C-alpha cells in the first residue's frame, strides 16, 4: 500500500506542478492516431457572451493547440515500434505546439493497452478522536490491503470510491463527521508494466515529462458521460482503433476498467481479407460506406473498389454495400459480445442505472447503436465528448473523447485524497526507495 500511496501522490504532485506552470499537454496514444492537445490554464472566467453556446464550466482552461498524427507503431494500445511511435508523438506534439506557439514540457498521457485489471480494495480503522480528521483518512487509505497483483504489473489508478462510518455508507467525504469505525472501498486499476515503461521511455525520448498516466477508458468516461450517468452508474465503451476500453462509473468514480483487445483496425483487417483489398482501400470504404444493418437497398448499392489486377481501363470491380456489411458485422458483434462478457463479470447489471455509452472512433459506424442495443441491452447511446473552450470542431468528435477527458481530468482531478498525510509509522525507507525508483524510471 505504501508504494501505491507514494506513486499516486508523486503523480498528483507532478501534475499540480505542471498546471501551476500554466501549460500542460495531454496526449492520447491510440492505435489509430496519436492526438495531442495543449491546454493553457488561466484564472479568468470565459467571456459571458455567446449565451446560445452551452459551454460547461469545467475548469478554467483553454485548448490552444491541437495536433493529430497517424500512429503506426501502436497495436492494441501498446507500443510495438518505439521509433515509429516516437516519431508520431513528435509530429503530433510539434503540430500542437506550433498552433499554440507555446512550448510544453509536461504531458498527461492516456492509453488503452496493458491489459487492465480492476481490483476492489477495502480497509478499516478506528477513528482516533471523535470526529474524522484528515489523518484518519490517510490511515484508512493506508490500511487497505493490496492484493498480490503480480510483480509485472503497475497500479495506475487507485481511488477511494466510498467511505463508510460505522453503519452509514455512501459518504464521499467523511471529514468532520463523528463515528468510531471508518472504512473505505477503493478501486484500483493495474496494467502490465512493460507497456507502461515503453510509454514512459517513449515520452522520455521525446523530451517530455510525464505528469500523469491514465487509462483511456477512464478519460473517455470523464468527458462523455453525463452528470447523472456518472452518478447513477453507466458504462463507457471507447471503441478505438486497436482496442476497446471499457469502464464503469458509479457515484462519479470509476469502479471498473477493462479493455477488449479488438477495435476498428480488426474490422478493417477483415474487410481487407474478405474483399481482397489493400489495407488503405479497406479503411477508406469502411469509413465512407461502412454499416452494420443491411437493408434491401444495400444490395443494390454498389461500391467501386480499386482493382489492382485490372487488364484494361474499364475493368472495374464492384462490391455491394451488403457484402461490406456482411464482413463488418460479425467482427463488431464479436467485439460487443466480448464487451458484454466483461460488463457481466464486473457486476454492471447490479447498478441502479444501466446506461451504456459508446464512443471512440469506431462508434461512428452507422447502425452501431441498434446492434449494440441488441447485444448489450437497452439503454445505449453514442456519446461525444463535452465541448471545451478552444477545441476545433474537427477535434470535437467521438474519436477525441479520451483526449478531452484527460483535459477535463487535469483541470478537475478527483484524487485529492492523496493529499492526506501518510501515517508516520509507515513513512521511512520506502519513501527513499520510491524516489530512487522514480529516478531510475525517468532519467
Amino acid at each position, binding site marked *: 500500500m505504501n508504494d501505491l500511496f507514494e506513486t499516486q501522490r508523486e503523480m498528483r504532485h507532478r501534475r499540480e506542478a505542471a498546471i501551476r506552470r500554466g501549460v500542460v499537454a495531454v496526449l492520447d496514444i491510440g492505435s489509430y492516431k496519436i492526438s495531442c492537445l495543449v491546454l493553457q490554464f488561466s484564472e479568468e472566467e470565459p467571456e459571458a457572451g455567446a449565451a446560445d453556446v452551452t459551454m460547461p464550466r469545467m475548469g478554467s482552461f483553454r485548448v490552444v493547440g491541437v495536433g493529430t498524427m497517424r500512429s*503506426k507503431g501502436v*497495436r492494441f494500445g501498446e507500443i510495438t515500434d518505439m521509433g515509429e511511435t516516437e516519431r*508520431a508523438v513528435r509530429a503530433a506534439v*510539434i503540430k500542437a505546439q506550433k498552433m499554440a506557439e507555446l512550448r510544453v514540457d509536461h504531458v498527461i498521457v492516456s492509453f488503452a493497452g496493458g491489459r487492465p*485489471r480492476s481490483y476492489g480494495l477495502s480497509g478499516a480503522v478506528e477513528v482516533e478522536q471523535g470526529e474524522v480528521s484528515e489523518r484518519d483518512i490517510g490511515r484508512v487509505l493506508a490500511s487497505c490491503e493490496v492484493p498480490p497483483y503480480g510483480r509485472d504489473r503497475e497500479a495506475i489508478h487507485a481511488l477511494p470510491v466510498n467511505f463508510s462510518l460505522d453503519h452509514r455508507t455512501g459518504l464521499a467525504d467523511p471529514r468532520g463527521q463523528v463515528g468510531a469505525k471508518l472504512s473505505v472501498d477503493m478501486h484500483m486499476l493495474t496494467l502490465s508494466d512493460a507497456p507502461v515503461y515503453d510509454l514512459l521511455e517513449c515520452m522520455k525520448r521525446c*523530451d517530455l515529462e510525464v505528469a500523469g498516466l491514465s487509462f483511456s477508458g477512464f478519460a473517455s468516461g470523464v468527458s462523455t458521460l453525463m452528470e447523472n450517468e456518472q452518478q447513477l452508474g453507466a458504462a463507457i465503451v471507447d471503441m478505438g482503433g486497436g482496442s476497446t476500453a471499457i469502464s464503469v462509473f458509479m457515484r462519479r468514480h470509476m469502479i471498473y476498467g*477493462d479493455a477488449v483487445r479488438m477495435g476498428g483496425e480488426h474490422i478493417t*483487417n477483415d474487410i481487407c*481479407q474478405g474483399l481482397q483489398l489493400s489495407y488503405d482501400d479497406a479503411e477508406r470504404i469502411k469509413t465512407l460506406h461502412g454499416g452494420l444493418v443491411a437493408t434491401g437497398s444495400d444490395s443494390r448499392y454498389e461500391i467501386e473498389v480499386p482493382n489492382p489486377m485490372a487488364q484494361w481501363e474499364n475493368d472495374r470491380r464492384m462490391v455491394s454495400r451488403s457484402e461490406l456489411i456482411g464482413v463488418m458485422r460479425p467482427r463488431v458483434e464479436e467485439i460487443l459480445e*466480448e464487451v458484454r462478457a466483461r460488463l457481466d463479470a464486473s457486476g454492471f447489471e447490479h447498478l441502479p442505472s444501466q446506461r451504456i455509452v459508446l464512443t471512440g472512433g469506431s462508434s461512428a459506424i452507422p447502425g452501431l447503436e441498434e446492434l449494440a442495443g441488441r447485444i448489450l441491452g437497452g439503454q445505449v447511446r453514442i456519446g461525444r465528448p463535452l465541448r471545451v473552450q478552444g477545441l476545433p470542431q474537427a477535434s470535437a468528435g467521438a474519436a477525441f473523447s479520451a483526449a478531452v477527458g484527460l483535459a477535463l481530468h487535469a483541470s478537475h482531478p478527483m484524487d485529492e485524497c492523496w493529499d492526506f498525510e501518510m501515517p508516520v509509522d509507515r513513512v521511512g525507507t520506502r519513501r527513499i526507495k520510491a524516489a530512487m525508483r522514480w529516478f531510475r524510471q525517468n532519467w
Partner: protein
Amino acid sequence: MNPIVAERRDMVVRHETALVKVKADPAPSKLNYRLERLWLTRWFRDMVRIWLPLGALIVVIYGGYSSPAVSGWFSAQYQVVRGVVVARPELRIERVEIPVGSPDLQRQILGVMDLSLPVSALDVDLRELRDLVQGLNAVKSASVRFLADGVLEVRIKERLPAVVWRNLNRLYLLDEDGVMVAEVPRRSVRSDLPLVVGEGAGAAMLEAREIFAVLAPLEGRVLGLVRMGERRWDVVLQNNVVKLPGVDGADAARRLMALQASDDILDRDVSVIDMRNPDRLTLRLNEEALRELRRLREKIHGERV
C-alpha cells in the same frame, strides 16, 4: 482476492508482416524537434530575436568607431557625398541682401559675417551668422534666411543712438535702452543728442529719458544729466545745478518745471537747487546774491544775520 475479470480469449490478429521496409510516416527529425522546442522557449526566442541582433549592432557600431581605418573610410565617403551635394548650383549663395540699415552698418555686417561668396548653403550656419550679426553693438536683433536665386537675406533692427554718454573721458552713443551703440570721438559729432555723464548712467536710461522729456521746454538750457553714485541724477543747467532725488526723479523734475513756471527759479541767482529731500527744497545762492540778501535783511529788520 481475485481480479474481476472475464474469461479472456487471446486474440490473434493477422497483420501482414512487412518484409519490405515500409516508408515511415513524415515526422520531424529529433534535431528538428528539439530545435523547434528550443525556438518556442520564451527566453531563447527573445534572445535570438532581440538581444543578439542588438548586441551585434552595438559591437559593429563600436568597432567601426574605434577602428581608424573604418571610421576614416566612412568619413571619406561622407566627404565625397557631401562635396557632390555642396556643388549643386541650387544651393549656391551669390549675394547677401541687407534691406535696412545705414551703409556703414551694412559694411560692418558684411565684415562680421566674413563670407567668401559664392558659398554653398550647406557650409553656412545660419544660427551662427545671426549670432555674429546680433553681436554687433548697433544691431538690436537680426534674422538671417535663404531666399531663392542664391540670396542670403539679413534682416536687422538697428539700435538708434538716443544719448551721448561721457564716461572716463570717453564719449559713447547709447540707445534708448542704455545699450552702447558706438563710440564717438567728439561731442560735436552728435550735438543733437542730449548728454549724460557718470558711471552707471546707461542702467538708468529710462528715468533719464523721462527727465529729458519733462525738461524739454527748457530747450538749450539743459547741458546734461550727471549720474551721482549710480543712484540719482543731477541736472546741469547753464547757470545752476538741480539735485534730483534717487526715487521719483522725474516727479521732482516736474516740480522743478512748476517752480520755474511760477517763480522763474532757474533764472534767479541760485547755484544749486537741492530737491533730494522731497519735503524741503534747499537753495544754495551765489556769493553775490547771498551778500545782497543779507544786506536787504539788515536794512529791513535792522539786524545782522
